[in-house]
């Protein structure tokens, strides 16, 4: 099996699993308990918090809060701060945000908030001027993703933070960094970002654990009320093995950032170039340099995405698609539509996302096999004349 869907989830690193196991077995104590038996789990959480602080480039481990996933981090940040700021009813985000933020915004609109959704250009680049023009005195919150899950495009969140704070110092700025964590360096302490969320399973920790950085000056209410855990902001007995796991994963990811940005990038570029060269109906949906190093989104014109994925799956290759047909909804990807990707390629867009476990052999295999698959699939398409023209144009 060749796994090129690392933006969906990643394989757990063996070393992460090893780190977790003792807290399932012998060291099962509740970290809040008084006896010595609870010291190890309590120490494990402290250690993980320290590693997460380094991973996100925070000043202090007290700024790190563990959650159950990226969606919880986003919900906690957004709902929590809005609850403390009831007077302001204007919020801003982007058109290409992850559904966990977009759908939250839609529901906030129903509760009486006014929301602005900022556009992107055909390469997926955010319209910073538009964002700037939308910030008002009563803007409670701005939420922008660090990197897009479908295209990998990186937003200049540090610059956006400065713009937000210059125009409206009281406005809270949240960054959904789920697709950035482990792929590019994050350094919140040198920025004006107020809150930033990540999810463990995107960087080789297991599913079911995430983290949220909160600047000490930010006030928010908890989503889950109860005990004193996570400094009263996220009640519930700590998920010790998973917290130990995400801590270890953060440490490993930080250590392999350089590898991600050089070697994984080299493999991604090789895959991208190989496909674009060998498959005549392919087009790169975003060619920006400013993308996370593992992601490539390629449109295959006049062929539908689910059909491509099924045929890739038949040869053991896992990828994903922004096609409507794979998701159960009938609408193609909101991200690709916001970019204005032409209809001819919109339904046939495939996302390949690599990881530090990707090998050169795997990349070569896909480059070798894809032209044959596409030959077969284009032969079924009713748009033979259009395909012929494409072929001639590409020589």
């Amino acid at each position, binding site marked *: 099996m060749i796994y090129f869907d690392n933006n969906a989830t990643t394989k757990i690193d063996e070393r992460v699993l090893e780190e977790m196991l003792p807290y399932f077995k012998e060291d099962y104590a509740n970290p809040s308990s008084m006896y010595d038996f609870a010291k190890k789990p309590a120490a494990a959480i402290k250690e993980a918090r320290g590693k997460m602080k380094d991973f996100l480039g925070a000043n202090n481990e007290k700024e790190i809060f563990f959650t159950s996933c990226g969606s919880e981090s986003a919900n906690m940040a957004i709902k929590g701060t809005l609850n403390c700021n009831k007077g302001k009813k204007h919020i801003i985000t982007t058109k290409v945000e992850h559904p966990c933020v977009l759908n939250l915004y839609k529901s906030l609109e129903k509760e009486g908030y006014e929301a602005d959704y900022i556009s992107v250009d055909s390469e997926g680049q955010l319209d910073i001027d538009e964002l700037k023009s939308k910030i008002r005195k009563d803007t409670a919150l701005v939420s922008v993703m660090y990197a897009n899950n479908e295209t990998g495009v990186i937003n200049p969140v540090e610059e956006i933070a400065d713009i937000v704070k210059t125009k409206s110092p009281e406005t809270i700025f949240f960054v959904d960094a789920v697709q950035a964590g482990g792929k590019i360096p994050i350094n919140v302490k040198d920025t004006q970002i107020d809150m930033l969320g990540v999810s463990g399973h995107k960087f080789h920790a297991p599913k079911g654990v995430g983290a949220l950085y909160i600047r000490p000056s930010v006030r928010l209410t908890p989503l889950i009320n109860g005990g004193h855990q996570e400094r009263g902001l996220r009640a519930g007995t700590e998920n010790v093995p998973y917290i130990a796991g995400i801590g270890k994963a953060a440490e490993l990811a930080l250590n392999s950032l350089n590898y991600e940005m050089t070697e994984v990038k080299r493999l991604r570029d090789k895959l991208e170039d190989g496909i674009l060269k060998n498959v005549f109906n392919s087009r790169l949906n975003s060619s920006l340099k400013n993308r996370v190093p593992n992601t490539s989104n390629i449109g295959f014109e006049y062929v539908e995405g689910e059909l491509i994925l099924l045929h890739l799956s038949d040869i053991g290759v896992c990828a994903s698609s922004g096609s409507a047909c794979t998701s159960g909804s*009938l609408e193609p990807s909101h991200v690709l539509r916001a970019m204005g990707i032409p209809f001819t390629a919109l339904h046939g867009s495939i996302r390949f996302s690599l990881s530090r476990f990707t090998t050169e052999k795997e990349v070569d295999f896909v480059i070798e096999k894809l032209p044959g698959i596409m030959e077969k699939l284009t032969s079924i398409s009713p748009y033979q004349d259009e395909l012929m023209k494409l072929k001639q144009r590409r020589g």
Partner: protein
Amino acid sequence: MWEYSEKVLEHYRNPRNVGKIDDADIIGEAGSLACGDSLKLYIKLDGNVIKDAKFQTFGCGSAVASSSILTEMIIGKTLDEVKKITNKDIADALGGLPQEKMHCSVMGQEALEDALKKYYKEDGWEEIEFPSGKKESDKVICTCFNVTEGQILEAVKINGLKTVEEVTNYTKAGGACGRCKGAIKNILEEYWNKTSSAEELTPTQKILKINKVIDQQVSPQLQKDGGDIELVDVEGNTVKVKLTGMCSGCKNASMTIKSFVESILKDKVDSNLTVEQV
């Protein structure tokens, strides 16, 4: 991941009759590139019989499989025979499709219908009746996917659809902007009200039907627990029954009456019925 039947897997992997017939007598088309699926169906006739059929499809696995099996279903058949093919026939031939993919079978049926319509028009025939009920004059309900009232009604009728979501799965109507969801709901309500009032029973028919349900479905269940039930009377919508055997005097008797006997009768006979123990 969708749960596709073996037949669907076989047909998307090795689709039959792919391509174009250069001297086709009729070509049927459905869908569009913008919608995410489209189909061209080529038919070669020998008199009234379909001698050959080929297809070209832009769409997902189940769209390709639906098109492929459709060509197999129509080759060798007369035009009169293929006129009767419904989307459900196509889905059934594939061993079923996931709910969300039923619209793929509808696209096959539409392309076939388009082909026949063109043929009969050239032949000077008047409008023919199709199972999908689509007529030129039909009102378009879903503008995103160009789905008419007739198509929605037909999908509702053939597949027994009850909710807007089901209609979307079968016809795509309401799947994009969602503005027509209210209109779809109205169509559903109107259709199901009409159907149930059309089936209104006379008092005698009602009693006979209640008796039959009690005999065949309620009584055997109670007998398993050593009890039984007798129908005493029906007054309007009130069904009077007597519990016998182990059931008589059982402290759960009223539970049995309400949650078991009444719910079966409501479901099978009339939703307005209430059951009383005498």
